[in-house]
């Protein structure tokens, strides 16, 4: 499998580590009233789609950047790759 790194071009998947669902970026507000339930869902509940899935990949043997990779779980086709910090920023999570 080849991942088209947004900065470095096509790289072998061997250089990356899969770190889970990209929804991990959407960490709930710890001070909210529903925080307990929100964190339960955040920690334990995952969608398991047969199809397009956004996931976090870490370029461990490369530039150590975090990527959000959109992959079809049925075919392994990768349709989109972007830097996780840009994805997070768009979702209002830059701090």
């Amino acid at each position: 499998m080849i991942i088209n790194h947004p900065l470095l071009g096509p790289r072998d998947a061997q250089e990356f580590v899969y770190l889970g669902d990209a929804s991990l970026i959407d960490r709930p507000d710890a001070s909210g009233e529903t925080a307990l339930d929100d964190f339960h869902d955040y920690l334990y509940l995952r969608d398991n789609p047969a199809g397009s899935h956004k996931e976090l990949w870490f370029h461990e043997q490369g530039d150590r950047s975090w990527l959000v990779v959109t992959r079809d779980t049925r075919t392994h086709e990768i349709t989109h790759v972007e830097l996780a910090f840009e994805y997070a920023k768009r979702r209002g999570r830059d701090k």
Partner: protein
Amino acid sequence: MSDQILTPLAALGDHSPRIEKIGSLTIEENPDLAITSIAVRHRRDKDLQTFLMPALGGELPSPGRSVFTSDVSTIWTGVGQWFLIASYAAHPDFAREIKSLIKDTASVTEQTDGWVVFDIIGNNLIPLMERLCNLNGKAMMAGDTTRCLIEHLGCLIICRESFRKFTILGPRSSAASLYHSLVKVAHNVA
């Protein structure tokens, strides 16, 4: 810095750097390098550029690239991170020198003893590179730099001159393993 009384060994444990000639290939250990890493602090990119501009004679390299001057090589290693490499003899306290130059715009870490550096020179290094790692060696031009796996080791690969001259930085604690793979592959392609 205090005077050194003991003579350091080279990364492969010898008193002098190892030089291996295999066919038309030369693999040379280069111990005379001071290496330091800089990581830019939040929103200080422009200030860092301003402080470094005089030393580098230009801007910090973009992703996958390096800039070489007669004194300092600058290598992009990650988003907002670079390696600066200079002669150890000329800059024995390089990290401190860089820190005083760039002040609080970036964090500086000493890397000198963390790496073993091999210069590989030959007429055509592509068959060697193809066997060593996943990179498209043919497409690498002078100044292209990237980190990738050689065997099980994360190494920085710097193209000094396309096809003919590459520099490989590998973890110093695995210097002998890296050297073994380089020599083995060189024999296979020679």
